[in-house]
């Protein structure tokens, strides 16, 4: 068991080195949420009500892009390149390998959320988080949920060339209807219904409670329930359909 943990740690360290060894990619990865905050901050300047919406919204978007989008793309790439198949032929336990990859995505999520929280404090008058525990709980729940959904989603992406299109067709509509950029309560009812069924809205609601309005965990139990159900579905689909080998289509 300690051996498997040590191997997971080594795999995680390798993934981190690989991430930083592509510095421009790493820079844009962390710059994107800041850019969005800057743009929408400029558009909404003077309206604290709107700023109160976009800071937790962009924190939620960051969790989704670093886990769901990144894992769906990475796994498609690793599968197509034959890296997964190669690893499968070594004694490295599958769990240690995939754990290292997932932990790498989780680290990026944590760094991006930290950047957003810091920017909220420094530039957008949000102050420090009202409830740190709630922040950690919702980031953790969001990461588990969206990471497993990203792995599951990689199963349906046929090849890496198709991956950006497949990821964006989910990512972009979901962030628009989930209230990342504006208060979605003015949206038409059917869009709100769809958004309520998806996990990102509930992750952002929880983050909003933690960062802005101070409503505690007790007010967000139904949000956690929805996120948890999606996480269970995601974990089940991620493990069931997992393929180490590129489909030979």
């Amino acid at each position, binding site marked *: 068991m300690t051996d498997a943990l040590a*191997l997971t740690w*080594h795999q995680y360290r*390798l993934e981190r*080195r*690989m991430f930083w*060894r*592509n510095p421009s990619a790493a820079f844009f990865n962390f710059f994107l949420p800041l850019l969005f905050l800057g743009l929408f901050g400029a558009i909404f300047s003077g309206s604290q009500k709107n700023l109160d919406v976009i800071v937790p919204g962009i924190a939620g978007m960051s969790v989704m892009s670093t886990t769901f989008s990144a894992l769906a793309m990475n796994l498609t790439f*690793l599968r*197509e*390149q*034959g*890296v997964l*198949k*190669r690893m*499968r*032929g*070594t*004694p*490295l*336990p599958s769990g240690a390998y995939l754990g290292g990859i997932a932990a790498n995505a989780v680290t990026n999520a944590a760094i991006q959320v930290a950047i957003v929280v810091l920017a909220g404090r420094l530039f957008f008058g949000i102050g420090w988080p009202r409830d740190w525990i709630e922040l950690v709980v919702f980031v953790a729940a969001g990461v588990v949920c969206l990471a497993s959904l990203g792995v599951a989603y990689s199963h349906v992406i046929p090849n890496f060339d198709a991956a950006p299109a497949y990821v964006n067709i989910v990512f972009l509509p979901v962030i628009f209807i989930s209230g990342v950029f504006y208060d979605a309560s003015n949206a038409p009812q059917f869009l709100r219904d769809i958004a309520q069924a998806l996990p990102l809205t509930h992750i952002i609601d929880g983050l909003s409670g933690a960062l802005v309005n101070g409503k505690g965990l007790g007010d967000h139990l139904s949000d956690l329930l929805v996120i948890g159900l999606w996480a269970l579905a995601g974990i089940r689909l991620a493990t069931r359909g997992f393929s*180490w*080998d590129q489909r*030979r289509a």
Partner: protein
Amino acid sequence: MSTAAPAILVRDLHKAYGDHEAVRGIDFEVAAGEVFGLLGPNGAGKTTTVEILEGYRTRTSGIVSVLGQDPRQRSRHLRERVGIVLQSSGIYRHIRVREAIEQWARFYPAPRDVDEVVAIVGLEEKADALARTLSGGQLRRLDLGLALIGDPELIFLDEPTTGFDPAARRAAWDTVRSLQDLGKTILLTTHYLDEAQALCDRVAIVKDGRILAVGPPAELGSGSSRYRVVWRDDAGELHERETENPTALLHQLTSAALARGDALRDLSVSRPTLEDIYLELTAGTEQEPARD
């Protein structure tokens, strides 16, 4: 475990993909320390067979034993004793050669020395290079290095030199021979006849999911009972005759020639080479690009 036990044992192996039967009853054994080749055209079932032995695919039926274990169980212990070079497999684009081999060394209980492995595969000068800057041949050598770092007893090489230039092939052959000298068991697939002849102790010729002939490369040719007699008549035309009884044929030919006053120029009697056997056995193979 007895040392006399074969490293690989395959009995009546079948593998079907839906309606398509890729492997249709294959039997062979590989002794410890032997270099065994599966030789055949593309689509013959070589890679399917090897990937069943490697634990990547499950068989439809038959018995398979690799180092005394069933690869279907995918035991970690077995993977520690086996090195795999796949036909094509990727690697992190931004990993350095030495770094990759060091990382892989952690997977194994008793790895070889990293620098030693870098030297065996001839990548000393590229030890600090990123994988994405390597040539195709250098990447192939890195593949081999990653397969060797765990000091495996058994090494699978799936078409190890496909796409190599002649010099790179010779270098790869030397590496395989050095592994044999270390006592490693090697199962390789190839569609190059000269490669099978140069490297293998024994060769199985595979076609359409079956083994057509198996034996040492030299004997596969001479084991045939047929002889080929070639001569040129007075008009300069080349004649070729195959026979199981060269004495009788030669007697007949020479008597007739003497009677006519012919010379039977360029007369030769030869055994068919492995190439003749291979071409004959694999003639008329339907092209099946899908699975090897």
